[in-house]
């Protein structure tokens, strides 16, 4: 899709992008992905970035995840990720911290799902852990 150029620049090849599959988002996926401002959070806590990665896996490989009971969008909403919708600044950071402390503890189902994500073929292949 991209071509490395001298000096490390990249050039976007549109014909590659045109064929790229773009999943259609469901309502819950729109809420969890489009209505939360992850930009200031992901750098601060890599676990939120791990959750975002998980969302991407679920968007592109739903069968692989769902057959093992991994439904990250549903579980994240159940765990309270929706509290971050529309929140900004320091309140966003604090709310996200509280969500992370709860949802990324080993006793929480969302932690277990992210834990098991690493055992899936697609994830092992993509992350080079075969």
């Amino acid at each position: 899709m991209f071509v490395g150029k001298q000096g490390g620049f990249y050039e976007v090849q549109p014909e590659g992008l045109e064929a790229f599959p773009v999943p259609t988002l469901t309502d819950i996926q729109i809420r969890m992905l489009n209505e939360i401002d992850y930009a200031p959070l992901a750098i601060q806590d890599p676990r939120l970035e791990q959750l975002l990665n998980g969302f991407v896996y679920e968007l592109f490989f739903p069968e692989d995840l769902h057959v093992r009971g991994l439904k990250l969008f549903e579980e994240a909403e159940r765990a309270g990720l929706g509290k971050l919708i529309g929140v900004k600044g320091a309140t966003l950071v604090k709310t996200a911290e509280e969500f992370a402390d709860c949802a990324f503890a080993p006793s929480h189902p969302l932690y277990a799902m992210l834990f098991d994500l690493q055992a899936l073929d697609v994830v092992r292949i993509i992350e080079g852990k075969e």
Partner: protein
Amino acid sequence: MIGEAASIDETPVAAAMPVPLRITSLTLCDFRAFPDPISFDLAAKNLLVYGENGSGKSSIFHALRHFFDLRPPIIASVKNVFSGRDINQFKVEVTFNDETPLVSWSSARHPSQIPGADPRVTETARRKSCLDYRALLDTNYMHGENRPNLFEVSVARMHADFPITVEGGTVTTIGELWSEVEKAKPWNYNHSLERIQKACVDFNEGLRSALNALHPHLEVFLNAMTRGAIAIKPFTFGGVTYQHGWWRRDRTINGRELFPEVIFNGYELVTPQTFLNEARLSALGLAMYLAGRLACVPAGGERLKLLVLDDVLIGLDHDNRTPVLRLLQDHFLDWQVVVLTHDRVWFDMARQFYEGSDQWVWAEIYADGDGGRANPSVKMPNGDLVRAALDDCTTNLAANSLPSAATSARRAFEWALKRFCERRRVQVPFTMNPKENDLELLLNAATAWVELPGTNRANVTPILSELRMYRAGVLNPQSHADAPNPSRQEIEGVLLAIQRLRAAISNNSIH
């Protein structure tokens, strides 16, 4: 908004599947000590295995460890070297309690191999915990008289597979983070230091978060195992740093230090390994390992969590082993536990401890003779110690192995008598001499109990008299070395007497 944030739902919701995944059987063929096919029927329960040294216990340990492994060894390194079997006959097979066909590790493929890996195997590989006694020794004795530095053992063994989420949301492990530190060391003086510095930062953050996460579990486990005698302060890990230099020998990683701050009854120990007894050192090592696992493996759920302990209780006496059994019962209830031991007495005691729980099955492995190349055999006795010993006796009699039958009869007698005294609340005199023959004491006490005037216990008297008679021969543990072999009739007579004693234990008409 802050008020709303505080109301985040903290109640985990249980997964839907009601029956947890468990192993129902394990079959090995041509794997290490097992040249021929052999099966262990776990029945989806925990397994306690007794076997003498060289009988194949560690082969079971390694079979489970490598079957549930994302990076299994090559088959040549675990194949039985004496079997002469073709490599195609090598197999480790596991069946689960989910009504699916068995899963096989063969020369064709390992079940964690992608594409097409079995998710139950890969998920369990990330949850399993396999610990042998060598790992425990690493936590204390290898440090001699020096202050024990647990850095290497923590990073390379005990917490190597502790998952850590790093920048970018990628999941790695403590072991992989340390591996990256070592790989990132510059290969010449002018090389950029950016990679090594980042590797050190990532590793330090990862290890600190792992140590912080495991400490609360460590406190609970130490308290349970040492009855509050030992406490440990939260770890203070200063972090590793890279020291650059012109010469390769000067380019080193500093700060590879992790010292446990152990407190024994209020006294801070600098070198716990020279102060604490073996039991407490083993408890410390075991607690550190188990705490690390509980701190990262998801709690609850329907996935298989496998804990395999190979002779790790070897350094504990009975008083200190019971708390470990209790700890397994309390904190690893949702795990499938496999414990391997070479200690016959403890094996029997553990069976008694778990009797009635219906969560354990037992196996005995034997591999006698042939210069250590014998094909081990497995017995899976039921939970009734007396019944199991009587069955052994009957089997040995059928095989005309009279000395073995006599040994089994003695074991059946011992447990039957102990059980009789326990259930009937027989008062046994106290003795200061631990070497005093306790069976004789029990027999005397039981006799006094049945002869108590005003009771209806008289019909037990002839049973005890008969058993006392056999104490001079078949039931005398000192007699078998030099004495001629006991006769078949004598052993059959003992069997009958023990069965009658066993019946008397549960006979409600005897008061």
